[in-house]
């Protein structure tokens, strides 16, 4: 009997780590682009850090995909929408309004459903 490859909890956990890494990296890159005012300033530490974080995230994502389905793990990446909202609030002072809070809760609920649905 063929054993269906299902998504492990470890894979889901790794993808959550990836979302944290890429969200932080995204903020670094955004900050790095904000600080770019001429050709030479594009090589700043923020941009570099952001790309490093993305690179590490890529490797961990690959590790996760080995033990999980793309149709389950990829939607979990949408958690980064949530982290970016919070990070943007703390780093750039972008306001949290009821739409964002609601959106965060709904996304979280959706990701939970996929997590459960992917293990059935």
């Amino acid at each position, binding site marked *: 009997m063929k054993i*269906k490859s299902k998504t492990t909890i470890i894979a889901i956990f790794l993808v959550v780590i990836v979302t944290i890494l890429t969200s932080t990296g995204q903020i670094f890159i955004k900050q790095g682009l904000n600080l770019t005012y001429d050709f030479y300033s594009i090589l700043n530490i923020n941009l570099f850090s952001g790309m490093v974080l993305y690179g590490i995230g890529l490797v961990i*994502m*690959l*590790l996760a*995909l*080995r033990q999980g*389905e*793309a*149709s*389950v793990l*990829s*939607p979990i990446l*949408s958690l980064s*929408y949530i982290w970016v*909202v919070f990070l943007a609030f703390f780093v750039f002072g972008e306001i949290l*309004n*009821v*739409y*964002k809070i*609601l*959106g*965060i*809760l*709904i*996304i*979280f*609920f*959706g*990701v*939970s*459903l*996929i*997590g*459960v*649905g*992917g293990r*059935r």
Partner: protein
Amino acid sequence: MNTPLWTIFVVIFATVFAAFAAVFLKKSSDNLAFNLKFFFSKTLILSLVLYGISTIFYFIALKFGELSILYPMVASVYIWICLLSRKMLGENMNFLKWVGIAFIILGVTFLGLGA
């Protein structure tokens, strides 16, 4: 600013590229090894190139269009990923997964409205 129609098309275009990128990434992970051979493998390079192209398209579209309209379209990438992974990777979909994706798109829509 309102949202020009072309930005919507560009975003949909980008999401298709990104979906293929995700599926190819999954495919490449089967051969994961910490050596140059893997990091230069066709599937991985293809995935990264497609991701890069979709990122550039997102960047362009989001410069000229409103987040409230474009954000949910970006989130539709998960629909394409599910459909593609079913065809190309043999992954099965179920009711919970589809409902979960629907909620994610709904949630992202709210984020777009809140931006």
